[in-house]
């Protein structure tokens, strides 16, 4: 087992197209993720949808994170410390399903993404390791 926290985390960086929610990301995304949690209340969802910029004024979220939120740029939000289960509150508030929201991170249209899933999903071949290219 990996007992050393640094070795443990370094290995995660070798997985293509994947950002594991480590302490560093959790710290960076703390208020971004806590903002997402606020959307579990219907009155907050209403207020958020009515005026997103105004709603964000109450939160200690960076300008970069705000821009990514307004643009619903989920890859960028992950890079800025967001976690998908937190961000799910944002796309659920938009009325999007997991498939619709998740497909936006893959560079595929939602139709192509759905077709890929129906055909058995994305193969792990070639996307297991950056270093080993397998």
């Amino acid at each position, binding site marked *: *087992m*990996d007992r050393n*926290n640094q070795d*443990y985390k370094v*290995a*995660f960086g070798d*997985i*293509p*197209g*994947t*950002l*594991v*929610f*480590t*302490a560093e990301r*959790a710290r960076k995304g*703390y208020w971004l*993720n*806590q903002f*997402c*949690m606020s*959307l*579990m*209340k*219907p009155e907050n*969802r209403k207020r958020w949808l009515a005026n997103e910029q105004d709603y964000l004024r109450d939160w200690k979220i960076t300008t970069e994170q705000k821009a990514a939120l307004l643009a619903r740029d*989920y*890859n960028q939000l*992950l890079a800025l410390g967001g*976690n*998908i*289960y*937190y961000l*799910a*509150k*944002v*796309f*659920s*508030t938009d*009325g999007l*399903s*997991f*498939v619709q929201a*998740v*497909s936006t*991170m*893959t*560079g595929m249209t939602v139709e192509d*993404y759905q077709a*890929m*899933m*129906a055909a*058995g*999903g*994305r*193969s*792990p071949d070639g*996307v*297991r*390791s950056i270093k080993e290219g397998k």
Partner: protein
Amino acid sequence: MAKITAGVATSHVPLIGVGIDQGKCDEPYFKPIFAGYDWTKEWIAKPENRPDVVILVYNDHASAFGQEIIPTFAIGCAEEFTSADEGWGPRPVPKIKNHPDLAWHIAENLILDEFDMTIINEMDVDHGLTVPLSAIFGQPDAWPALIVPIMINVVTYPIASGDRCFRLGQSIKRAVERFPSDLNVQIWGTGGMSHQLQGPRAGLINQKWDQTFLDDLTADPERLRQIPHIEYLREAGSEGIELVMWLVMLGALTNPKELHRHYHVPASNTALGHIVLENGK
């Protein structure tokens, strides 16, 4: 004495809940998803199989726990729990009634056995807990079993190792067997199988790896215990890590025998896996 009679594992994909709540089970997309639960529904309805209590191992998906408190292992000890509003309103399901005497008994024994459980008395439970109940019990007015919720953090790293989860299951088994009333107890492991919900690699599915995992629940539990996190992430996708929760179930069983298996791709972004294991001796 209380006894664990069976282990049940199932994915807890939110879409399964959507299918049931919106009456879509007979639509072509959903039909093969739900067909695999028919056997289990029939099996669990038989009086000799019907559990008095289900110990339901799941993870909270940023519903009861935000970033302010992140328990590695937690146990729900309150009388009852309500379905969480995850951003689209709470799922219309019955209240989840606990067996608080058993829950506290398990909590006490686990802590004395050096598993430092967080005890939760107030929380809403999300799709991780309610979707398995709906998939297996359908839409009753009240759930036919009491539910002891056990929560495992699989969101913020590091999370507990697979082996630690397995040993938690072993400790749960010892605790249940010490409970001084006759109860038919099942342990359910939920989440998985292969799926990735984030980044350009989203949509990853690894059927071969999943099927070997299902095989080894009975053929080679020792191998499953030793799978490191990095292998789950590489082979089964970033959210495939949820499978460590199946190991809590597995640890609570002795020489399990496979009774039923269901595997279907896709359910939303996910490879759906479901297995019923009879506890051996």
